[in-house]
């Protein structure tokens, strides 16, 4: 699946997007955050406060317990500050 990062999540990880294939036991958005945070220091820094991280699957906001099976694109970002 394609994973995208925005704002300071993107800056901390150091890339805007990547293609990843998490293992089968990574089932929810929350699982994915945990799996990403274990990938290295930059990821650990980006996801150090999982509660503030927002996620979208295929361009729609989702909650941390949303299932990721079948997702083509998952995005992680801080709370939005548009408008």
């Amino acid at each position, binding site marked *: 699946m394609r994973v995208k990062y*925005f704002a300071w999540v993107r800056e901390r990880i150091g890339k805007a997007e990547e293609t990843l294939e998490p293992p089968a036991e990574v089932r929810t958005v929350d699982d994915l955050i945990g799996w990403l945070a274990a990938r290295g220091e930059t990821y650990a820094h980006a996801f150090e406060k999982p509660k503030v991280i927002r996620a979208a699957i295929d361009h729609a906001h989702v909650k941390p317990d949303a299932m990721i099976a079948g997702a083509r694109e998952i995005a992680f970002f801080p709370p939005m500050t548009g408008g």
Partner: protein
Amino acid sequence: MTVAATIRIQDADFDVAQEIAALTKGRTDIGAVVSFTGICRGSEKGEPIAALTLEHYPEMAEAEIRRHADEALSRWPLQGLAVIHRFGRIAPGENIVLVVTASPHRRAAFEAAEFLMDYLKTNAPFWKREEGVHGTGWIEASDHDDAAAARWTKS
């Protein structure tokens, strides 16, 4: 009558008068038009800023705004609706966002515009980075904005 919302995400500035005219020109059934213009301020929490840079999620932003625009169209008797959100670098005094609503009645036009602004602030995938005197930083989301958006949730 089916009303289609005008939604644009662009780096260029917009013209309020032109957007109002696009909704109202040649019509005699509109009684009330409300416009909201959000402008970049030259300071944040007392600290001067040189500019904002708005990052956004292009593939999601239009879909997300359209979802809320469609909700506004279903909740209020609107005859026209436009939402324009800029991205990129924006200097103090420049426009950031525009919402225009047209309705036979003023209350609907006001409420729909306020609803859309509250949702844009909390749900549209845009992030503001400020260039301050001590470097740059991301603006933090406001609890006030979350509370404002929650007002519109149907119980």
